[in-house]
């Protein structure tokens, strides 16, 4: 299988300054994304998962330069995105679109579907004026909206339909990459399934590439080819969907997966409880950022930052993990410091 690289992110950092003191100087930084690298191939769906504050949304925004990244490179289709001028970047945005969680907040309430889609096409001038109306109707049909709804305002649609308008808007400029930032999180499950199916269909029909940012691991398993797991601004594990779900290596990934309730009353999984809360990204823990909550942590974890690497014996090079003890834990040579299945013990630590 020949895969063509569409997006390459290297050493991306996104630090947000914190102002303070008498003169409003920058006193510290929120290290929202701290040195991450990954690639995205044409036609695939790569999901970024993690809990709130892990930096997954920030990553999406940084790639599109909605917030200017602090450091690193982003290469899209061989072009250096961060080096582009404003005008060039605007042109580039027709190739890279984003869909947000709250369709209501991201649509102008005073514009009809026709106006919204027309405007998107006008900014990017990808479709000649005469053909726009036909294109709008075509788009609406593609995303499953009725032709007669063309002159309605966002408030006249349900949440799921509004998300379809958002998708139509993204599609209107013929993008290559769509970043879906929690695009289905706000939808009820029956509607969510409709939109997920729509996204899958569009991907195969239009040869789209998705960077899918989500916290719902059911959705992620369903839609992704590969998965990135983030914790406190760093990638802790990356690999193909099946191997992440069936053979997770990082203690955080394991805890995360074990925490999701299974919709099957007969299958009660052994749960790993993490102690405490996620630390602040302002002064993240030294070494491995997960060490404060990790039952396997040692002094080495407190001092040395583990590298995200393939441990070839078990991962065949496609599954990378940032943990000093991944292999030892797997082999049963490194044991947990406390019992992880008792919630009280975890909470009172």
């Amino acid at each position, binding site marked *: 299988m020949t895969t063509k690289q569409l997006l390459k992110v290297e050493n991306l950092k996104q630090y947000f300054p914190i102002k303070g003191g008498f003169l409003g100087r920058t006193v510290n930084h929120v290290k929202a994304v701290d040195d991450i690298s990954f690639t995205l191939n044409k036609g695939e769906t790569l999901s970024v998962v993690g809990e709130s504050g892990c930096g997954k949304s920030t990553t999406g925004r940084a790639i599109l330069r909605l917030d200017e990244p602090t450091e690193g490179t982003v290469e899209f289709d061989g072009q250096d995105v961060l080096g582009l001028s404003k005008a060039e970047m605007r042109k580039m945005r027709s190739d890279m679109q984003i869909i947000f969680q709250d369709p209501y907040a991201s649509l102008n309430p005073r514009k009809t579907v026709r106006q919204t889609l027309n405007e998107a096409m006008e900014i990017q001038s990808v479709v000649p004026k005469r053909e726009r109306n036909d294109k709008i109707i075509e788009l609406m049909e593609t995303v499953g909206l009725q032709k007669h709804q063309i002159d309605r305002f966002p408030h006249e649609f349900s949440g799921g339909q509004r998300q379809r308008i958002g998708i139509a808007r993204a599609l209107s400029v013929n993008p290559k990459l769509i970043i879906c930032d929690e695009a289905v999180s706000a939808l*009820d499950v029956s*509607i969510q399934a409709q939109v*997920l199916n729509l996204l899958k269909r569009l991907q195969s029909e239009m040869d789209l590439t998705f960077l899918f940012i989500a916290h719902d691991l059911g959705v992620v398993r369903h839609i992704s080819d590969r998965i990135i797991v983030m914790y406190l601004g760093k990638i802790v594990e990356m690999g193909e969907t099946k191997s992440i779900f069936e053979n997770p290596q990082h203690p955080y990934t394991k805890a*995360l997966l074990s925490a*999701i309730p299974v919709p099957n009353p007969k299958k009660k999984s052994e749960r790993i409880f993490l102690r405490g809360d*996620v630390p602040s990204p302002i002064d993240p823990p030294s070494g491995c950022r997960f060490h404060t909550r990790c039952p396997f942590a040692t002094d080495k974890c407190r001092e040395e930052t583990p590298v995200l690497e393939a441990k070839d014996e078990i991962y065949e090079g496609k599954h990378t993990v940032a943990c000093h003890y991944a292999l030892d834990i797997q082999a049963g040579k490194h044991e947990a410091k406390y019992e992880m299945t008792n919630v009280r013990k975890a909470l009172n630590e």
Partner: protein
Amino acid sequence: MSENILDINDLRTSFFVEGNEIKAVDGVTFQVPKGKTLGIVGESGSGKSISALSILQLIDDPGKIVGGSIRFKDEELTTAKGSRMRNIRGNEISMIFQEPMTSLNPVYTIGQQLREAYKIHQGLGKREGTKRAIEMLELVGIPSPEKRVDQYPYELSGGMRQRVMIAMALACKPELLIADEPTTALDVTIQAQILELIKNLQEEIGMSVVMITHDLGVVAETCDYVAVMYCGKVVEFADIETLFENPRHPYTVGLLNSLPRHDIDQDELVPIKGSVPAPDEMPSGCRFAPRCPHASDICRELPELETQEDGNDVRCWIYTEQWDGEKGVKVYDNETTS
């Protein structure tokens, strides 16, 4: 079935807006067996939260309970006096809410808010109240509770605040806890902590729980019985295993088929077509008929919630003698027949 601590029959709660009646809860019937957990599932607008708020008479204007009965330990709550209701709230029946970030009063300390419950229901003073508050915080797994007790809500994370809410709800050892989407706003690792905590405390105190959620995973993990709600009505009431193995109502089946699973491989999701009807377009017959793949002419009339052979209830014509169409509905690869 064991003795019921709560018995709700044909409950109706409506909102009156500009002369229109919006029937948010439209004839809801369910029971909570003593010591057990009942789940109420449904999507937004199904009336599950309003049903829960109705139990404690916490419906704000312009909403009103317009009919039906709520019996708590054989006491009718819909006609109970204000003073009696206040006595029940937070003492015999407690409630926790979805948004831990906004459910605590920002201008009072954690201790002040916890002490209030002890003061109202047990007449405890400041010193004794603080002592009990610290014990309670410790019980819900908050580290260094004697320090936390003097902190303000903004100093705590979302998971911590939800634990404070639980501590406050359980302060007077209630017999029934109503948890309205208690973990929806939280990350999954925190959700796991909170759900486990509720389960542990339930065993210790011996209380019954009503768990309102849209997450079928949470239901499967925590509940003994489930009421599935759609458009203000209970469409199915079943024990947990039957609900997942042998779901009867086409809506329940649709929900299960729409659900992307993290624990198994799925080829395709089968969504429910269309969307929830707006209040002014509510069908007079079966509310689900316009979206139902099995709907036939008889569905223009409203079916009753009828008890089946195994003791579970379903509101669907398919399971009646009047049904002349194909019997049975499909979920995953399991064929279910009536």
